[in-house]
């Protein structure tokens, strides 16, 4: 929260202020970070991501004879595959920031997906009639509501009955996986509602070229507005502001990233088979341009929307402020009059809601709900949050970091599949990366204290 602002340029009063803002000995890079208010950790994460991407690409090139990683097709798939984990990771940030953990998200995802599938295929058609257009909408809402209730129940046990989150959610890990099995007696339920499966991506679950440019344009406008707005606010109170060059640099980099992302998703075309089918169906003019861009996949847009909403919640609202204050010092938060138990319950309920949403994405992508859906997701989600800079000691973490962390985890996973590592090695790598990330966090905190 605070990392977004400049330190005051005025000279401070105590020798404890070693890093006084006008320190001449400070390196150019540190000064750059301070002026732009870019988090050094964020840069580190982006660096690690680039290394992973280029590493897999080159490995493919030299060892396997074909470099596939940095192809638009792979990167596009990567964005889709990240969505479900990414959505949950934004909630896990708040859970871990308050010094809790949620080990149950994978199983809750499986349970919610199964519950939604049953509503969609068995229950709602009987009530509304087969093929009713509202079936998938109601099913999705029920799934998210179910996730919220499960999360709230976990939160109640943790906050009000004082059972450690580790235990409650470890129990939940087993209970909800078992419950998912019982719901459909282990059956796989196929989902074929077109509108529902669009939520999982695929050629039909993407918004196309023009709409993607519109999204990109809105993103640029949003970036420029927020930079302008925060500068105006600081000027209004005559607070120190960032130097002009830093503002412009941030605007250029932000908009550049948005435009680059749009260009990327637009350079992945529909596969030939689907183009042919659409020509046969008369939906595409065979003499026109047959390079049909996917554009943003719908689950990716869901993740972006969740990311923005959760960032807003974490940094601009009382609830978010309380989450961080509780993480920093639970006793102080209580003494300041914050209802710590109630906030804790809400955090877990929110985690549950996001898990329900992730269940929508995951089952829509698979076109079915299976008993094993979401298995091991809790590890990916926790790893994403921790790699993204959420400290297990509490009080520290960002939403964008967790989403980047999810991209890192998914890049590792996808990359290992691409170059042909088998599942056993993939698991080992994920485990090692998780431990390493926590170790790096410990080191980082020891240094910055």
């Amino acid at each position, binding site marked *: 929260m605070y990392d977004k602002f400049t330190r005051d340029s005025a000279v401070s009063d105590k020798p404890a202020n070693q890093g006084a803002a006008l320190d001449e000995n400070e390196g150019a890079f540190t000064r750059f970070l301070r002026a732009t208010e870019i988090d050094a950790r964020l840069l580190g994460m982006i660096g690690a991501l680039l290394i992973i991407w280029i590493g897999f690409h080159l490995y493919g090139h030299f060892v396997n004879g074909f470099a596939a990683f940095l192809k638009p097709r792979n990167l596009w798939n990567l964005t889709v595959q990240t969505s479900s984990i990414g959505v949950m990771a934004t909630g896990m940030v708040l859970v871990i920031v308050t010094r809790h953990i949620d080990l149950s998200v994978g199983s809750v995802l499986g349970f919610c997906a199964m519950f939604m599938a049953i509503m969609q295929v068995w229950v709602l058609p009987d009530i509304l009639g087969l093929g009713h257009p509202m079936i998938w909408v109601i099913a999705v809402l029920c799934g998210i509501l179910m996730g919220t209730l499960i999360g709230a129940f976990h939160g109640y046990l943790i906050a009000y009955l004082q059972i450690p989150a580790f235990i409650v959610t470890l129990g939940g890990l087993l209970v909800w996986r078992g419950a998912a099995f019982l719901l459909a007696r282990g059956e796989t339920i196929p989902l074929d509602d077109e509108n529902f499966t669009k939520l999982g991506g695929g050629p039909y679950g993407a918004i196309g070229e023009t709409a993607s440019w519109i999204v990109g344009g809105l993103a640029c406008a949003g970036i420029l507005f927020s930079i302008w707005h925060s500068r105006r606010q600081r000027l209004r109170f005559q607070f120190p502001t960032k130097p002009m060059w830093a503002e412009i640099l941030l605007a250029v980099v932000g908009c550049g990233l948005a435009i680059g992302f749009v260009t990327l998703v637009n350079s992945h075309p529909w596969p030939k088979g689907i183009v042919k089918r659409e020509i046969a169906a008369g939906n595409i003019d065979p003499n026109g341009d047959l390079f049909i861009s996917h554009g943003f996949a719908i689950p990716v847009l869901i993740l972006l929307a969740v990311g923005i909403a959760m960032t807003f919640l974490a940094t601009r*609202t009382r609830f978010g402020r*309380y989450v*961080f204050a509780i993480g920093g010092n639970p006793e102080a*938060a209580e003494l*300041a*009059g914050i209802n710590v138990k109630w906030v804790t319950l809400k955090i877990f309920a929110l985690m549950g809601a996001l898990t329900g949403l992730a269940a929508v994405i995951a089952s829509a992508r698979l076109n079915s709900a299976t008993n094993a859906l979401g298995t091991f997701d809790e590890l990916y989600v926790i790893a994403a949050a921790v790699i993204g800079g959420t400290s297990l000691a509490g*009080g520290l973490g960002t939403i964008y970091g967790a989403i980047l962390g999810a991209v890192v985890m998914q890049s590792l996973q996808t990359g290992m599949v691409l170059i042909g590592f088998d599942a056993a090695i993939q698991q080992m790598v994920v485990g090692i990366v998780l431990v390493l990330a926590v170790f790096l966090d410990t080191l980082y905190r020891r240094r910055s204290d």
Partner: protein
Amino acid sequence: MSTANVQNIKAEPLVELKNLSISFGGIKAVDNASMELMPGEVVGLLGHNGAGKSTLIKILSGAYKRDDGEIFIDGEKATINNPRDAKAYGIETIYQTLAVADNVDAAANLYLGRELQTSWGTLDDVAMEAEARKVMGRLNPNFQRFKEPVKKLSGGQRQSVAIARAILFNARILIMDEPTAALGPQETAQVAELIHQLKKEGIGIFLISHDIHDVFDLADRVTVMKNGQIVGHAKTEDVTKDEVLGMIILGKCPTKAIPGPGAMEESD
């Protein structure tokens, strides 16, 4: 009632603590303690470390739930079950442990639990920072590090943040638990000045210390605790420092003091 005798127009107590008790696992940390505070009065609460001073005032501030006893504010029975309740009565507390959230900045700490919001219902960080700059300017004019997590501040600066938070919301009753523990002489003088100022505004102050020198010149009355019990109350002008030391160390009440349940029995 027509005889406007000074005794009769004496205002009613701002706070009355009556027979408060609390124990932790069988140990009576506070045992049948009663005291009162008038508007504009500074009461020094003295006693050795472990005497029960912090525990007693934490009952008033809502941090602990008492086992027994009653609290009256403005003569009316008060219900204080948590810190929110206490704040609603205008009771602000500077805890001995400071109780600041280390990972958020000074402005966020000042407004913790009572954030200013914009008309959109979002946090109004700039407005909070502006107010924080004003109130901190009164306490610690050199302070400029508004946007850094509090854990990066020095002990004195953190203490200023805790004090600023308590005076920001127009407290009527201020509890200061060893407020100058981490402060240098200059900042301590500033706090003394602040106490005079707040007293003039009619705020009642409990000033807690284990060191008699911290409070003797500031307090109108002193109350001494020992082993969870009140040894006695005395007007500062009626007793000497040595007599108060005798109360603290031996539990011996001088003649001008009003003895409490913890006063030493006069054996001879």
